[in-house]
């Protein structure tokens, strides 16, 4: 993270930024005064940057408890006249949806930009929903940046457009854009002092039915007016060489199309769209009229394509339009240069050269993501496994949730049976404990619990459910890069913050069985589980131990380095540490169990797992 460059005042300076860093720069250049988020890949780095520079640059930033809250904080700040921004991963918009739709009616005073980071191909997500559909559903203008520099520009432009029309502006990123680096050319940072005052206007800000009817009509009129902006926008451009076919493409896919068409000298003119709702109808109509055949290339859903088809119908054009409906382009997964090339070659009936470099017969080992060496979740899963085996419970069900611990799905634990969305472990546990006789043990992380776990836990208590809930409290939002949450004692501005104690919160609901254990202490954890499983009702065990990566940092600073090794004289090759516990630092070489010293984190849990006390500290 090049914080100095991101906040630099050197105009014209060329810096090499991540798409997400460029969004942050755009916010700063555009005079943004308040930003909010709930972290989630692929959006997280925007917040990581803003959190670190907020004080120095002079704006407010927060990690909110969830996306709905984040949305409301930013939306209302816009009503007070401040340029505001909220951002999250695509599924975060589902959480914010309720206020999102209505905020399109209520509109904005200060510029309000919403960035949705979609995840085509699901690199880090449970689905690949295309949020352009949701933004259109809400009736908002949509911008789709192609590269980091445009990410920066579009945030600034978004503020202006939002202020001019009093409407939130939606920027749609994707993983590839958020996580690509490219050259960004810095522009001046705006330092206009804006009026910060909430001027009451209940007819506009309180959509009781009588007001809402007016507001909806206004919204429809605004978006109609904004068509003229899209029509003249530089974000929509045509590359024309008088070729036989046309391609209409948008956002990140434009890059693949342009590169491939140039490299293989293919006969396409290209209309690249960056301002995609409302689409520039006149420009597109003219483009359609110039060709007999047009292909629409956009990742995921046929959002632009459908509009183009409607335009064709309305204008009685003869142009043939190819896209998803013709199975030329898929609605699945991320596009890339290969896919675009294959599709275009197929369309042209051209043979593609195969020159792929291959090694037959030797394959790399499977290397799925795993819980880190020393991860406290592994210890918790192991404890659950041991107790269930002792009590001869074979068919327990494990509702899981969103976080590093979802990796409990893998061998050897197989302890993630369901996962819908943030907080769903608890709602699912309610359902399963009512609908089956099986034991239900649910897992949720601290941050996820604060985000969406509290209402379902109240539901569980109120509706007299029977299950054990593990709140895996590692004192951070680990998977997304260790952002703080209400349980950790500091906030998004880097300031000391009050701590919400999970055990007090749970007890406050009225739940009687609440135990806090240290998962590194296996016997303590196992005893708590055994006690819990003997009782009826909702039981909560809080497994509290800092994330191993945070512990690493802390120990390194303290100058403590602990490593374990296998004492060969004591090891009897039972392989329990390998097969049942599976810390990634432990491996077998020439039939002997070993610990990789570089990877070992010194948590010592394996030494509790070993029945022969063969795992010892390196002195």
């Amino acid at each position: 993270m090049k914080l100095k460059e991101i906040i630099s005042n050197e105009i014209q300076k060329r810096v090499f930024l991540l798409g997400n860093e460029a969004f942050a720069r755009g916010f700063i250049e555009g005079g943004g005064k308040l930003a909010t988020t709930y972290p989630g890949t692929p959006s997280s780095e925007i917040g990581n940057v803003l959190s670190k520079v907020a004080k120095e640059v002079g704006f407010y930033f927060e990690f909110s408890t969830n996306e709905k809250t984040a949305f409301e904080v930013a939306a209302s700040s816009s009503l007070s006249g401040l340029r505001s921004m909220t951002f999250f991963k695509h599924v975060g918009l589902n959480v914010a949806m309720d206020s999102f739709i209505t905020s399109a009616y209520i509109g904005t005073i200060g510029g309000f930009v919403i960035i949705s980071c979609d995840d085509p191909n699901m690199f880090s997500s449970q689905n690949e929903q295309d949020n352009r559909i949701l933004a259109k559903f809400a009736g908002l203008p949509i911008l789709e940046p192609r590269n980091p520099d445009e990410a920066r520009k579009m945030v600034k432009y978004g503020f202006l457009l939002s202020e001019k029309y009093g409407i939130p502006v939606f920027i749609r990123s994707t993983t590839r854009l958020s996580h690509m680096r490219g050259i960004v050319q810095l522009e001046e940072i705006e330092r206009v002092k804006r009026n910060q005052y909430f001027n009451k206007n209940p007819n506009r800000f309180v959509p009781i039915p009588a007001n809402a009817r007016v507001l909806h009509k206004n919204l429809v009129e605004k978006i109609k007016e904004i068509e003229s902006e899209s029509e003249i926008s530089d974000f929509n451009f045509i590359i024309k060489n008088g070729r036989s076919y046309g391609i209409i493409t948008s956002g990140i896919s434009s890059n693949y199309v342009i590169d491939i068409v140039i490299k293989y000298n293919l006969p396409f003119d290209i209309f690249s769209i960056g301002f995609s709702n409302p689409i520039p109808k006149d420009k597109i109509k003219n483009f359609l009229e110039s060709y007999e055949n047009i292909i629409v290339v956009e990742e995921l859903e046929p959002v632009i394509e459908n509009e183009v088809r409607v335009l064709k119908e309305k204008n009685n054009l003869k142009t043939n339009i190819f896209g998803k409906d013709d199975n030329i382009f898929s609605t699945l997964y991320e596009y890339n240069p290969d896919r675009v090339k294959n599709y275009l070659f197929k369309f042209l009936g051209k043979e593609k050269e195969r020159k792929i470099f291959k090694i037959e017969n030797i394959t790399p080992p499977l290397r799925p993501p795993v819980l880190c060496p020393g991860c406290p979740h592994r210890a918790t899963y192991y404890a659950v496994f041991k107790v269930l085996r002792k009590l001869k419970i074979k068919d327990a069900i494990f509702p899981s949730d969103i976080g590093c611990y979802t990796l409990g799905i893998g061998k050897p634990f197989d302890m993630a049976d369901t996962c819908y969305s943030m907080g769903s472990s608890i709602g699912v546990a309610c359902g399963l404990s009512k609908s089956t006789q099986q034991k239900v043990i649910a897992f949720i992380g601290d941050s996820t619990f604060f985000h969406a776990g509290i209402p379902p836990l109240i539901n569980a208590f109120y509706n007299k459910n029977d299950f054990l809930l593990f709140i895996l409290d590692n004192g951070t939002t680990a998977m997304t890069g260790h952002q703080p949450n209400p349980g950790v004692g500091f906030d998004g501005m880097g300031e000391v913050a009050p701590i919400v104690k999970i055990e007090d919160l749970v007890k406050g609901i009225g739940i009687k069985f609440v135990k806090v254990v240290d998962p590194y202490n296996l016997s303590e954890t196992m005893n708590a589980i055994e006690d819990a499983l003997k009782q009826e009702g909702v039981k909560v065990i809080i497994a509290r131990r800092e994330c191993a990566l945070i512990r690493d940092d802390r120990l390194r600073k303290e100058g403590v380095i602990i490593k374990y090794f296998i004492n060969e004289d004591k090891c009897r090759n039972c392989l329990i540490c390998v097969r049942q516990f599976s810390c990634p630092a432990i491996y077998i070489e020439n039939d002997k169990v070993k610990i990789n010293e570089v990877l070992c984190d010194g948590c010592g849990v394996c030494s509790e797992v070993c029945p022969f006390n063969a795992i010892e500290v390196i002195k």
Partner: protein
Amino acid sequence: MNEFNILIVGVGGQGVLKLAEMICEVSLLENKNALMSEIHGMAQRGGSVFSEVRIGDVLSPIFEDGEGDLMISLEPSEVLRYIHKLKRNSFILINDSEIIPFTVSLGISSYPKKEEIYKSLKDLTDKLYIINGTKLLEEKSIAYTLNSFMFGVFSYLNPLNFSLDNFYKVLEDNFKGKNLELNKISFEFGREKIKEFKI
């Protein structure tokens, strides 16, 4: 279209992204356009990680299969996973130190014999360089500077004829104080050692 495509691969936690970023930064100092793509989030947890780097007048941060000019693999078996991205006779630099995944210990997959990997690579390129940076650095207790070591190896092979000064500038931009010193040592060590390790 002039383009040079690089693939950096390894295992989560090895510093793949930092190395890719440093190579891009040298290109920028050389006034060449650079693009890079990264993987974050779930895949980073000890899984296989890769980053694509493109230098030249292109727009897409990722390149087609069979178009890679150079690969740096921080782990021997990871070469296999991405070999389809390379051109014939491209540069392949390997850090010869295995990280055995737990799937191998559990018996659900197996780790190929290194000699066999290298043998088949030799049939595909004569620009194969194999060096155990991890081990060499461990002797100096600076194994965590592996990416600067490989940065040094890259600067020695220097397929794009970048000036050595710019490599140093990038090190200076990326590290401070004592850390800079150690990373420079590692960088120079990589430059020096690679001379002995061409296969």
